[in-house]
Each structure stands twice: as C-alpha cells, then as structure tokens.
C-alpha cells in the first residue's frame, strides 16, 4: 500500500534502489574530523590580533538606567572600545512581529544578566577590569516574576515592553475553538480537568555561545558565530548595524549543539560586531557557562490546564486547553510558541471538538524561546497523561485506546492540518510488540511499571516567517573538471547531519560515491539562502532542494553522455560513477567524461534547486498558519522503569521509541536523532529544571542544571517506521524533534503503572515520588484502620 503512491511520485527511485545510497547507514561525513579533534568550532579560530569582548550585565531584574559613565573604562590602557545601548538602539528579534531586543539595554534593564555595556580589550583580565570601572546608576522598578503579576494592568513604565495586551505584561493571547466543546463535556462518558506545571528547561548544548566579529579594511563585516540560522543573524546584523546585507558575511563553523538554542539572533552577536566596527579589530565574545544560561531562550516555564472528554463511543470527544507560558524578557519565537502549545495537540488522535486559549507573559527573567519539540512538549505531556487516566478508569488498554483514537492517513484535522502518511498505529504496535507490552502492562510487581505515549510534530513550517517570496531552501551544485560535486547550502550543520544528508542525496542522484561530494554550508557569501536548522525543516526542505539541483545536474551530465555516445538521453542512468545505457548496459561512460563533455562551451556545471513550500493549504481561521506543515511526523514510545522504594528514585530501564520518519534516508542518523531526543526528553521528565531564586537563576551551571548522565540513560531501542511521504525527499519526514514528545508522558504513565500515582508537575524527582509514596502509605494505613473499625 505504501509504495505505489511513492513510486508514482518518484520515477527515478528504481535507479536509486539499485545503487542504494538512500536508506543506507552512512557515518556522518564530518565524523572523522570530529573523532580526531580536527573539526573547527568558532572558538577554535585564531584570527590575528583578536580582542576579547566582555559584557557588563544588570544586577537588577527590572530597573531604569539613569546614567552610564564609561570614561574610566575608556581611559584604561589595553581597552580598545566601549559600547553602550544608546549607540545601537535599532531593535531586532527572530520574528518580524517581535522586534523587541537591542544589542544592549537602552533605557532600562529587564532581567538579571541583561547586557548594559560592553568593552573590547587586549585580554580577558583587562576587559573584566574595565567592566568594573563602568558606573551605572539604576532606578529599580517593580519586578514581574510571577504569572499573576504579569497579568495585572500596570502603568506604562512598568510594562516590560511597549507592545503588550491591555496594559498588562501579557505579550500575546490567542484563542481557537472548533465544534462544541462544552456540549461534549456535558455528554461525556469520562472527563477530567487538570492543571499541569512545568519549570523551564534549557538546551544545554555543550559548546558555549561564541561570536567573533571583524569589521575589516574593506568596510565589510564578517561575523563567525555558533548559529543554527545564519540567515536570521544576517538580517538582524544588517538592521542593527544599518549596513547593507551584501556587506555582511556570516560564517558558521562547526556548531557544538543547538536544539533550538542557537536559532535566534543574539545581542552578543550584535555587540561583537559593533565593538569591532568601533575599533576595527577582530573581537571575540565567548560566554562563560553562566552567561549562556542567562542569554539562552529555553523552553517556556508553563502552567497548562487541560480538559479531556471521552464520549460514549470511548473516543476522544473534546479537548480543552488553556496554556499560560512565561516568555521572560523577550519575544523571541514566543508568538509561535503561544500557538504551538495548543494547535499541535490536534494529532496523532482524532479530536473533533477543540478549544484553545494560549497566553504568553513577559516577565523579568531570561527569555524563553524555541527548544526541541518547540511548543508541543508540555501540552503533549498533559494530554497523554489524561488519555492514560481515561483508559485506566474505563478499563481500556492504553495502547489499544490510542490506536482506536488514531487519526487516519490522508485526512484533515479539525483545525485543517493536512495529514499525509501516518504511521501512528504502526508506531504503537511495533513499540508494544518489542516491549512485550501485553505481558507487562498492569502485571509487574509494585515499583516496576511500563507506560506508553504518542506524539505528533511538524516537518518544517509550511509558511516562512519572512513573507518575501524567497524560497525557504535553495541549494547550488557545481561540478567541475575534477568530477567533484560541490554543494552550497546555508542549511546549518549542527550535529544533526544535514551536510551528510546533502551529500548523500547528491551522490545518490548522480550515482557517485559520497566522498566525491563536498559540502560548503558555512558562509552567507557563497551559499544561497536557506532559513536554517530549526523547525525540523532541513531534511524535508533542503533535502528537496538538493534533490532538485542534483536531478538537474544529472540531466546535464547525461546530456554529455548522450553527446559522446549518440544514444538519446532518456536511456541513461547514472550509477557506479558512470552514465550507463539502461537498455544496453555495455554502454558506459565514466561520470567524469560525461561531465567534461557537458562542460564543453559552457564551463563548470552549476545547477540550482529550491523548495518554496507545499501547495496552499490550511483554514481561514485566525492563526490557521501556525503549525501548518507540508507533512507531520508521528511517534509512540513505551517506557519501562523502576522506582527505588527506599528513596523514591526512578530508574528508566528501557525505552522503545518508534518514530514515523517517512523514510529513513540514513538509518544511523535517524536513530541518532531519536536516541538524542529520548535522552533530552527523559531529562526534562526526571531531573532538568531551570530554577529561580526570585529574579536570580539558581542553577546557571552544569552541576545543578542536571542532565541525565551516561549511567542513568536507559537502553534506547529506536524503531524506524517508514510511511513514504509523497512530498518528502525520497519519502522522508522529520526525525529531530518529534521523538522527544512521548518521552515525558510515557515516563509519567509508567510511574502510574509502577506505583499507582499520577504526577502533574515536572520534573518527577525522587523526593516528589518519595513524598507521594508516603502519602499513599498513610492513606492505605488510614483506610485499613477504618476498615478494621467497621
């Protein structure tokens, strides 16, 4: 069933199957550079005469800047430039609707750690000493550190930003309603409303943020930065520096992890550039780990109320979500997050009556933004936990209950998402089969349990955030006399393997070994624009673009072979580094010869492929575009764990993680994404929490911001479900974010199976479990004595 659709759409796949790079386990093309320490990251660059840039940070949560005196710092020997916010007041931000950040604070500071002034000096000691000489006079304002506070109407000077809702510190409010939610709740067989709490969590990539900027003798600006989206940085720099984009070059060296945390343009990137322009020397700003935590835009701390109604047919009848999320100091991706917390609950199960209110506040804390599973993770937790409760209360098997509620393939959700292929049922079935679900669920001794949860995620946003008609991904291919294929793209390799994907698809289409392809994806000067590595879009969009560019290249090379041999182009396939006449396989022209022939009178071959977006789709309601994607990924996890009854400490033993990735172009890389997602999701479920002590981050370090260690990470079984998306390159969909979603609720559901207790607050740490167990014991003792009294 799956393949007919697929073959119709991709006539060349027969050939592809034969030389078979697609679907092969291919080590990432940069793997050996990394495993030998030869890969260069931004901080590994050593430009001559580079200065150290440091930022003076606000010790106040919210305060007016009365004055800044930088004279002493400027006079200090070894100091080359000092910068304050007033010198660069142009605002920027990742979304066109939330341009609310500046390089440094202009009139007021809005969180502890907000940048106030910056210096560039000969060395770190001098830079730090110079910061101490800067005198800033503040007038503290009331700090907003709580949802309730931010929802209050306040005078203008207490608003964190100019644009807020109804004179409060509410940043954004959205509503959607479909069907008859209240009616379904009235008629429900089972219903429950519950409030869920989530602290913030952080990307915690291992490479700290780092930027080097050089405004050179030609009045050109080069900015090397650890970025997932060089293009957005490029735009923001142009705006803040008031320079034409063509005079600015952004270079992305290897990036030490992103997960969404390096996808905004950041103030320090502006500061490095501004400082360099002031003193015309290269300036490096490398963050301490603590600064990374302040600057980072983690997952929103959230309070999410969810109501679930199950109808008499034991199907999901209505879903009612009210999400209140803490955006911290800046807008960032927050408008999108505000929508995603609701709209992405419309799969993988059919919901016909759906209501959503989403609200995002500003507060005087580090900003929140996009993190792996952007906007979908917390609501997913709440929804899947309630589904589990419903199944339990109704005496239904939670796995079968999910299957019975699954959306079909090729359908539309109530909010008009277009669903194409859908592997949710296969995901559930295969994960359960491998886990031995039927023999374990409800059958293990007290303290040991198994749980299941599903997930649903976008594969790139159908609509770009900048409406200028430029394709979302463009890839250039060049083939010259040496036979090497040079691939230019601005899709950012951040460890997920996008360079490998580009090379693999090119090599596959052109029938050459992968090491004949070289990827240059590092510079905005040479690469065509691509809106970068976020939103799980790269394989789908840049993959389609590179495929198209490679197919055009194939046409040209085959043309060369046809010229050389006199056979018509239609008979040729590219395989095995040759152009081969498929009707008479004796006729073989080496790839390089065909290529050189094609170059005759025209020079090196250059082709372009692009991907703009899917055909128009989606509803007419407000916010209909949010969450629209050309295709969606589906996933289901089964988690088995055990609770140490003495301490309450949970230990996850195994995770069976099934994910519909459309098609696994490179199973090694798909597994890697799934395993990484599981690790990160379990961390949020079990131990990660970005804690505050009033306005201060309590744990801005890797000791107290806890990620699961190697000894606590369970055995993860990645199960690849392939459904062959009709529009994805060779059928592929995303696999880098969706597989995080089921991890959290599967843990909570397994805990219920283990000890009969539900948890509604993240993270579920040993102390919380132990407390709940104590309460359970007391209650049991209480009812036992009551029973005895009767």
């Amino acid at each position, binding site marked *: 069933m799956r393949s007919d659709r697929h073959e119709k759409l991709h006539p060349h796949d027969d050939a592809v199957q034969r030389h078979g790079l697609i679907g092969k386990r291919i080590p990432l093309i940069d793997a050996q550079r990394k*495993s030998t320490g030869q890969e260069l990251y931004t901080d590994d660059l050593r430009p001559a005469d580079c200065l150290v840039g440091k930022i003076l940070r606000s010790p106040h949560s919210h305060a007016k800047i009365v004055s800044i005196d930088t004279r002493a710092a400027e006079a200090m020997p070894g100091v080359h430039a000092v910068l304050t916010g007033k010198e660069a007041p142009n605002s920027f931000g990742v979304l066109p609707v939330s341009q609310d950040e500046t390089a440094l604070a202009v009139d007021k500071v809005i969180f502890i750690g907000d940048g106030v002034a910056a210096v560039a000096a000969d060395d770190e000691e001098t830079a730090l000493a110079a910061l101490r000489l800067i005198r800033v006079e503040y007038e503290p304002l009331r700090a907003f550190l709580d949802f309730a506070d931010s929802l209050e109407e306040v005078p203008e000077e207490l608003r964190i930003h100019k644009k807020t809702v109804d004179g409060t510190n509410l940043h954004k409010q959205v509503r959607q309603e479909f069907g008859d939610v209240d009616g379904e709740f009235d008629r429900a067989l089972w219903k429950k409303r519950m409030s869920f709490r989530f602290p913030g969590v952080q990307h915690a990539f291992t490479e700290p943020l780092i930027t080097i900027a050089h405004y050179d003798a030609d009045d050109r600006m080069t900015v090397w930065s650890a970025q997932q989206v060089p293009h957005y940085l490029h735009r923001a720099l142009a705006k803040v520096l008031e320079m034409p984009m063509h005079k600015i070059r952004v270079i992305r060296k290897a990036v030490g992890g992103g997960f969404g945390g390096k996808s905004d343009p950041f103030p320090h990137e502006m500061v490095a550039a501004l400082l360099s322009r002031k003193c015309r020397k290269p300036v490096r700003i490398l963050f301490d*780990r603590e600064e990374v935590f302040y600057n980072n835009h983690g997952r929103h701390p959230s309070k999410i109320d969810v109501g679930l109604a199950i109808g008499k047919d034991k199907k999901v009848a209505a879903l009612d979500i009210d999400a209140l999320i803490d955006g911290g100091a800046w807008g960032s991706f927050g408008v999108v997050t505000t929508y995603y917390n609701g709209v992405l609950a419309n799969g993988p199960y059919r919901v016909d009556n759906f209501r959503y209110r989403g609200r995002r506040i500003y507060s005087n804390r580090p900003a929140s933004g996009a993190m792996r599973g952007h906007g979908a993770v917390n609501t997913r937790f709440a929804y899947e936990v309630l589904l589990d409760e419903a199944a339990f209360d109704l005496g239904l098997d939670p796995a079968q209950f999910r299957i019975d509620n699954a959306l079909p393939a090729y359908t539309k959700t109530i909010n008009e998402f277009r669903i194409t292929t859908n592997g949710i049922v296969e995901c559930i079935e295969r994960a359960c089969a491998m886990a031995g679900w039927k023999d374990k669920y409800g059958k293990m001794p007290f303290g040991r349990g198994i749980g299941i949860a599903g997930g649903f995620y976008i594969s790139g946003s159908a609509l770009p955030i900048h409406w200028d008609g430029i394709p979302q991904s463009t890839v250039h291919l060049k083939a010259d006399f040496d036979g090497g294929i040079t691939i230019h793209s601005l899709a950012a390799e951040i460890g997920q393997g996008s360079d490998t994907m580009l090379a693999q698809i090119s090599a596959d289409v052109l029938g050459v070994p992968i090491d004949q392809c070289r990827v240059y994806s590092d510079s905005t000067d040479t690469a065509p624009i691509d809106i970068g590595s976020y939103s799980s879009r790269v394989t789908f969009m840049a993959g389609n673009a590179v495929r198209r560019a490679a197919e055009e290249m194939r046409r040209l090379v085959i043309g060369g072979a046809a010229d050389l041999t006199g056979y018509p182009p239609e008979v040729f396939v590219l395989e095995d580094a040759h152009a081969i006449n498929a009707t008479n396989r004796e006729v073989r022209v080496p790839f390089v010869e065909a290529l050189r022939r094609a170059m005759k009178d025209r020079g090196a071959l250059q082709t372009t492929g692009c991907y703009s977006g899917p055909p128009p789709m989606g509803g007419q309601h407000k916010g209909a575009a949010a969450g629209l994607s050309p295709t969606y990924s589906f996933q289901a996890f089964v988690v088995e764990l055990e609770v140490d009854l003495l301490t309450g400490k949970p230990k996850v033993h195994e995770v069976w993680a099934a994910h519909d990735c459309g098609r696994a172009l490179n199973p090694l890389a798909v597994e890697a994404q799934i395993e990484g997602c599981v690790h990160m999701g379990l961390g949020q479920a079990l131990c990660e929490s970005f804690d505050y002590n009033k306005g201060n981050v309590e744990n801005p370090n890797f000791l107290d911001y806890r990620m699961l260690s190697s000894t606590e990470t369970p055995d*993860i079984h990645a199960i690849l479900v392939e459904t062959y998306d009709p529009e994805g390159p060779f059928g592929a969909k995303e696999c880098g974010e969706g597989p995080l979603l089921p991890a959290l609720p599967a843990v909570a559901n397994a805990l219920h199976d283990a000890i009969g207790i539900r948890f509604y607050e993240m993270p579920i740490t040993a102390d919380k479990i132990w407390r709940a167990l104590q309460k359970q014991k007391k209650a049991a003792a209480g009812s036992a004595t009551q029973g005895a009294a009767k």
Partner: protein
Amino acid sequence: MTTASRSDSRRGDPARPDNRLLRLRVNGTVHSVAAPPHAILLDVLRDVLGLVGTKRGCDMGTCGCCNVLIDGRAVMSCLVLAHDAQGKDIQTIEGLAFDGPDMHPLSKAWAECGGSQCGFCTPGFIVTCHELLANEAAPSRTRIAEAISGNVCRCTGYKKILDAVELAAARIREAEPASAPAKSGGSK
C-alpha cells in the same frame, strides 16, 4: 619558545610581567611557554599552544569536554594549573587520534558508530576512553557507562558512544594477538 599570536589574550606573551616560563610535555614534545602562575592548563593548551582539539564546555569540572591525559590518567584540564602540569606527560586528542598514519581504533570506531553528532564532547570522551581501554581490555557496557560518567554529551543519548567503545575495544583485542603470527583474514 612558543608564544601566543595574541589569539585572544596575552597569555603566552613573554613580555607580560606576571608570566613565568614553564616547560610542558605535550604529546611527546616539550614546549617552553610563558604563562602566569594562575594560568589554567586548558587555556594554555588552547590559547598558547593552539591545541584547540581540547574543548571548553563549562570551565568548572562538570562536563569533561576539556579532558586530557596526564601521566595516562584522564583529568579535567579546566581544573589543573598549567604550572602544576610541568614535568608530567600530557596527551591531548591531537596526540591520541592517530597511531602513526592510522587512525586510532577509538577515533575510527567513534566515527563509524555515530559516536559524535555535534562532536563538541567527542575529544573529551575519547581521552577518557583511552584511559579506560589502557586498563581494561573488555569493559562491559555498564562499565563503559561508568567510566564516561564524568563526560556530558547532550546529543547522542550515549548509546552510540557505548557502541563505539565496545567496537574499539574488540578491535584492539583482535589486533593485539595479531602481533603474534598473523592469522589470515585478520579483522572482519
């Protein structure tokens, strides 16, 4: 004598008044460098000697990105004074990645198994695993997980890292008896 190209500080600058000369033996080569008494080994390796394979993740002993071998033992170079490392044998990823022209089995297996995604943690892990495999020829997966428990990887979920260390250990075991009369076929 090595001095910094003022890459990002004057740390290696002999003219700096608080700098003291020291000799560091790194990857078999003795370097004379200038660094102040409070210079951290990690900074000297990266900023003065240009050995940038050793990474800086946290600077506080909590991530293992900066691990190097000192006298054969994996330690966090962000918590070692450069002057305290004088007279010791320091090995960094640059010195461990290759055995002559051949990639070391750990680095090779790492690449094949998908032990790196972003790769920023990789040098530190590989350094740690060099110590492990020097002491134990066939560590179990549990034992490997313990040995790397001071190294943080945010990308991989550790599974493919365990795969890589197991594979490397197996290959090293296979190669060792091969120094006795070579079997035909060799490694598969």
